[in-house]
């Protein structure tokens, strides 16, 4: 009797959640205009697009079905496999898994949070963030005008008025390259503090692995506080 109940339960569950449902795109909106021949869908008002591991909300959306190109505008929010992004406009190629966001961009990917004016990301989570912006996680804050990102590989490069606050480092430079658990490289007009020491130079490397932490002055000087060696 229990086995029969279990089987019925399984059948009902399978009927309620078709296997391929998650693979389809669902477009919701107050209005949907669909050009069947040219394969273009336009949606307006409370737009929600749901796809494989994907949800996008916006005020307006235009979807070119054959190219799997999606343009959304107005209070756009995207959630996809650990990635959350919001902005004023987005272009998403669902086939190539590329994303472009513009206007008051905010986002997060796993442990990283970011803010800027324009963000482009590929499916492997590499890309660029431009405009005055920042990237942070707990105990880490990197600021700059242009960023190259590898969020999955935990590698970040900030350029133009770059600034890093991490552990006991508080450094400004023209370019800051951060490779998690490896090193931070500061290049051009480097100045700031490490612990209580003042650092100035053109190229400074900070080695990260625990137990190996050290500053390597490739082109620069360290100023010790008076009375210390």
């Amino acid at each position, binding site marked *: 009797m229990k086995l029969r109940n279990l089987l019925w339960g399984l059948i009902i569950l399978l009927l309620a959640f078709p296997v391929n449902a998650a693979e*389809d795109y669902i477009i919701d909106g107050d209005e*949907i205009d669909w050009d069947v021949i040219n394969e273009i869908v336009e949606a307006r008002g409370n737009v929600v697009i749901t796809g494989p591991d994907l949800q996008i909300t916006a005020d307006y959306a235009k979807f070119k079905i054959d190219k799997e190109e999606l343009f959304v505008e107005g209070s756009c929010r995207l959630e996809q496999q650990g990635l959350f992004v919001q902005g004023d406009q987005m272009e998403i190629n669902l086939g190539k898994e590329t994303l472009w966001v513009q206007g008051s961009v905010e986002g997060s990917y796993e442990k990283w949070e970011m803010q800027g004016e324009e963000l482009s990301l590929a499916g492997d989570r590499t890309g660029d963030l431009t405009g005055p912006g920042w990237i942070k996680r707990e105990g880490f804050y990197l600021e700059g005008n242009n960023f190259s990102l590898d969020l999955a590989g935990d590698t970040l490069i900030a350029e133009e008025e770059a600034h890093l606050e991490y552990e006991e480092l508080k450094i400004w430079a023209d370019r800051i390259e951060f490779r998690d658990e490896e090193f931070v490289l500061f290049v051009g007009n480097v100045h700031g503090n490490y612990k209580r020491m003042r650092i100035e130079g053109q190229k400074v490397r900070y080695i990260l692995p625990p137990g190996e932490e050290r500053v390597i002055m490739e082109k620069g000087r360290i100023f010790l506080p008076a009375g210390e060696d």
Partner: protein
Amino acid sequence: MKKKVLALTVIFLVLLGAGIYFLFQPVDLTPPEPEEEIELPRREVENFQLFLPPQEDGLGLELRGDLLVESPDGTYMDLTGVWGEFKGLETDGFYEVEADLGYLEMDPEYLRLEENVVLRNPLYTMEMGFLEWYGGDPTLYGGGGVFIQGEGFSGQGEKVELRDEMELIYLRGDARLYLKREGDGVETP
């Protein structure tokens, strides 16, 4: 002389009595009975067939059905068990329609289909609560809950407008469209 006075007095009293009598008669305030409507016979045609030729930039209509009942003045018709086709100037037989009930005005042309309305073309099948068409208009208007089903897609909404010989579908009110994904891409009609 006395006789004259007497006669005048009698006449006066008779007139006075008649005046008082009519003055105190009850007044009938009930409205007059309406004239009975005369129901004119309505012409009935079983297994009817109608053809409204397509106009430039508009659709035409070829309609068949079980029963057509024409109004006495010939301005409208009630239809039952309707099926047929919308036709464009250069298209023929692509847009089938059927419904349980219909209402058709001839001048200007206006058609409203209700109850189990189904519209079919090679791209999709659409079910709706009602369908309206204004003669000479290339657009069809559906409402009362719309469901669309085609190869690789389905959709729904409260209302729909079908334009450009039904290749443009405008869903309105809690609209939803499902696009089936096949392999690496979206399956298209």
